[in-house]
């Protein structure tokens, strides 16, 4: 009698597992975006309702700040495999949106 397989997913499932990770990434970002909007409305208005959050469309500096944070988030999560290969201090800081003081961000 053979032992039941404990590798429940075949290798072909890797892509579907990646889809699950990406779906989770999207959900985390949606929550993060909502958190940023909530903090903004609380700071500027003092209170916020669910409907105001649902209908709020960022503009101007807030939209730019969210876009930058969103791209940094995407780069970090989707770029995690790249981070395993590109591990210089400059590259690590660049991915975090920072520059190494006194050096180029493109060096190794």
């Amino acid at each position, binding site marked *: 009698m053979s032992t039941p397989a404990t590798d429940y997913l075949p290798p072909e499932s890797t892509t579907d597992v990646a889809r699950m990770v990406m779906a989770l990434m*999207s959900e985390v970002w*949606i929550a993060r975006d909502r958190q940023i909007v909530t903090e903004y409305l609380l700071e500027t208005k003092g209170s916020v309702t669910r409907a105001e959050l649902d209908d*709020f*469309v960022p503009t101007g500096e807030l939209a730019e700040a969210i876009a930058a944070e*969103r791209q940094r*988030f*995407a780069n970090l999560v*989707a770029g995690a495999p790249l981070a395993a290969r590109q591990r210089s201090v400059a590259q690590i800081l660049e991915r975090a949106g920072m520059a190494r003081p006194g050096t180029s961000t493109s060096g190794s």
Partner: protein
Amino acid sequence: MTFLTRLDDGSLKQGHAPSFALSQRGRAGLEILGAIQTFSSGTLRPVAAATFATSPQGEALSADHAAEHPALSQRERIAKARTVCEDDPVYRLERFFQRYVAEENFNRGIPAIEERRAQFLAYDAAMENAAGEAGDAGAETGSLTLDEGLEIPRYYARVEWHLEPGGWDGYDLYGALFAFGVGPYVFSKGGYAAVGIGDDIVNQRVKTIAQFPKDSYARIYEPGCGGVSTLKAVHGRFPEAELTGADLSPLLLENGARMARRFGFPVHLKQADCAKASGEADASYDGVITYALHHELPPKANRALLAEMFRILKPGADIVLADPPPFRAVSMFHAVILDWDTHHREEPFFSAVLHESLEAMLAEAGFTQIESYPLGQDQYPWITRARKPDTPSHQEATR
């Protein structure tokens, strides 16, 4: 075919200004797709391209691709190059993200617009009223002619273009989805299919219209117009021109008619299979424009379409085509990237057309003064333009 990527632009007719937007969840869910696509094409793809270019096999294939007399056929080269690319996990990851975003544009986008259906319909009605109130009395108006008996070609009916569920007519709010969701939050970032990173197809369309060589045109025709995105750009450059567009999709044409009213320019939209019969008179147009159409037609249909355009153009008239570049015009690595769309983004004729030459097809149809060249990065859009000879004898001599 055309997508709307920006609806609330400054050229909307002034009047009441109702507004519409996705919910925070809908917006953020699509915005993150735009960011993933930007990372995929802007960061991962250059890494994969460099890996390919510096590998011995990639180097050899690239040299053969650029050779005047290559040893391998174009199809053989691309197949071998694809194998080299697929050995690179970074390439595989980049392609996975491309596919994932293409799927999620609809998986996320359809619920995002559906949850706002009532608000969108109210907005749409308000905009329609505003367009009616702002219309000039006596001004020329457009028209919409649908043909319920039109025989839809099989190559078109069975395809869910770009992974769009149900095809172009599969969901009544696809127009709103592109205008308020996928367009501004994903497509406008570029970096998908043949569109370069950071490129916006709205601006590319304007540059394409500028390729018409004359200063004015009385009548311009667009086969496969979809909505009116390209015709709107044509109107911007040639405001006096009478515009006609044709397409197989009734939904796209209906949306186009509404948008033309809203933008305040007359256009005649007709449902027709232009690869069979446009229904237009011989020698009745001064210009023909296409935008991102030919890669969505089988080569045989392209030849028939160009012959039909030759028939309806006046002697001396111009034709301007904008499509992805042929494989021969791009790097070996980018040929693999373009070829990928055929199998992974529901573009069944993409590679077949990129292997061919629109220049040769135009010559077969009888056009002369044929030239082709790129307008933007990654050779996209690729322009092919020509002229119908201005004398019958010249036409015969060129056949």
